[in-house]
């Protein structure tokens, strides 16, 4: 496969593990703790980068799958020993949900903007549903659903066949490895036959269909894959903070994911990761400085991304770089996302 020999792929495959191993040796535990959640959220951003950026599906409720994954992990991990059943449940439940939603949407041929609203609506339904489950009556096995209080003391991750839970550094290794594996895996996937068809559907759905591809199945496939990644990230998130609450289904959280991907750059895979790290460290910094309301910051970032850098940072930077390097030569036009 040609992608395996590309310079940037090899660079990421070599530098990534080196960075993951080195970081806990050089920075404080507190930073490691924060970097772990950034890596988990960046994985979530990648799932939307795949579904929206590559597949052209406006999944504005990607948070629904993240939250479902988190809740599935929490419930399974509380009821069964070890985190393996939890992680399996955290993939299975979002995929089933995505398959059902995707069936109604893609086979009904709902237009893209309508789909955006419907996927967001699903997240808000879950928000209302979970919020109404406070009280002792709502429990699955030993796990209380907890309503708006969420589920506390979610068991941490552990390695398969090892009882001891991961410590801060171990959780960081797991989260960073998840991000790296998902990132490299998606880069390879985009260059497979499946990936190429998915991108061609984004570029021109009618043409892909006329060439004989069942567009609906490809959309369903990429949507379910995105849900699986988001669900896995949700499980890691619940294990990281040993908590999962209905806040992950809220409209604000859904908006955050969109901002990461939009700011980083649609149609790229590194963009959403960078976007997530930039936005999260910015909001964390502003939060520490107590400078302003997070809603205002997110809103301004959102508006700025759409109005000023509509292509996103990574594609814009690439274009500027190309212009600087190739001054005088004809600049190849960037493809529209």
């Amino acid at each position, binding site marked *: 496969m040609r992608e395996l020999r590309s310079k940037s792929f090899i660079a990421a495959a070599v530098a990534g593990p080196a960075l993951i191993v080195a970081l806990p040796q050089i920075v404080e535990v507190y930073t490691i703790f924060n970097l772990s959640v950034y890596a988990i959220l960046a994985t979530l951003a990648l799932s939307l980068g795949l579904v929206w950026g590559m597949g052209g599906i406006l999944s504005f409720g990607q948070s629904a799958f993240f939250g479902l994954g988190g809740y599935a992990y929490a419930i399974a991990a509380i009821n069964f020993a070890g985190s393996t059943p939890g992680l399996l449940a955290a993939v299975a439940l979002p995929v089933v949900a995505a398959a059902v939603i995707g069936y109604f949407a893609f086979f009904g041929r709902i237009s*893209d*903007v309508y789909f955006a609203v*419907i996927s967001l*609506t699903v997240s808000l339904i879950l928000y*209302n549903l979970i919020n109404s489950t406070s009280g002792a009556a709502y429990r699955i096995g030993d796990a209380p659903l907890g309503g708006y209080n969420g589920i506390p003391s979610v068991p941490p991750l552990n390695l398969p066949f090892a009882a001891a839970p991961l410590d801060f550094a171990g959780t960081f290794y797991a989260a960073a490895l998840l991000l790296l594996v998902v990132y490299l895996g998606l880069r390879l996937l985009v260059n497979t036959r499946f990936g190429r068809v998915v991108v061609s559907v984004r570029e021109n759905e009618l043409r892909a269909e006329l060439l004989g591809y069942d567009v609906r199945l490809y959309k369903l496939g990429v949507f379910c894959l995105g849900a699986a990644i988001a669900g896995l990230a949700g499980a890691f998130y619940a294990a990281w903070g040993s908590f999962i609450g209905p806040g992950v289904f809220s409209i604000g959280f859904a908006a955050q994911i969109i901002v990461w991907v939009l700011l980083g750059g649609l149609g790229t895979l590194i963009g959403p990761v960078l976007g997530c790290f930039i936005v999260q460290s910015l909001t964390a910094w502003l939060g520490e400085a107590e400078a302003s*309301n997070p809603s205002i910051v997110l809103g301004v970032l959102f*508006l700025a991304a759409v109005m000023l850098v*509509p292509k996103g940072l990574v594609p814009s930077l690439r274009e500027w770089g190309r212009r600087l390097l190739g001054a005088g030569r004809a600049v190849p036009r960037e493809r529209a996302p």
Partner: protein
Amino acid sequence: MFAEGGHIDTAILILVQVLYAVGSLFLIAVGLAIVFGMMGVINFAHGEFLMIGGFAFVLAVKAGVNFWVAMFVVAPLVVALIGVVVERLIIRHLYGRIVDTVLATWGLSLLFIGIASETLGYFQEGVAPPFGSVRIGAYQEGAYTFFVIGVALALLAALYVLLRYTPFGLIARGTMQNAAMAAALGTNVRAVYSITFGIGAAVSGLAGAVLAPIAGVLPVIGVTYIAKAFITVIVGGASPLAGTALASSLLGTINQAATFASTAVLGEVALLGAAIVLLRFLPAGITGRFLRGSV
């Protein structure tokens, strides 16, 4: 809930509450429907337009303005003004880029929520609904419920007359059908869009004010409206008035029926679930299949 009382009383009460659910759903959605149907713009800050309408009404009443003036003049005017400014500064630059419009207005919605919670805060005293209550056999129902149903009907009629029988309505509908042709015939398309957006915003402001005495006002209240409003507009389809009226009748009835059978939360879940299933079979909404070409 239905302790004593005869069957007829119960039936009337259920009918009134279904009509109320339909009417409030229509009020929540119609401003969004006008903007979407006439301009193809999806305004994600619609919930915040309702929120601002509610706040404008409550603050005006607290400042001593007459209840009805606050509801029917102050709230629509304030929100219309904000709407026109938003159209000038943001929407106008994004015509034809429907996804970018969704994203920009979503950012705007977050911004409004942030500003409202910074300046107005979460502990806003509400305004009690006037009129007292009405007896239906063994039951009591707030008279304001009937008022909300009446406002929804009156608004439907007024908007229908505006779009169907006035020169502005004719121009607006022409622009909606073919903006390029309207421009070629000398219509100032930008002005038409600006006014249409303003009208949509004014209607949203009015709706926010009418619902404020029942729902209360909070900076984040728009979020509770937005999902229902969007689903109603999408299920309604291309025709802003006929579509919204039909969709809110259908979804409001489902919502209220499920609420009677279980809880209010499950009622909303039933509304949204029914809408998703319906769109599997009518992807262009109700007026995409039936009553095509109506207003």
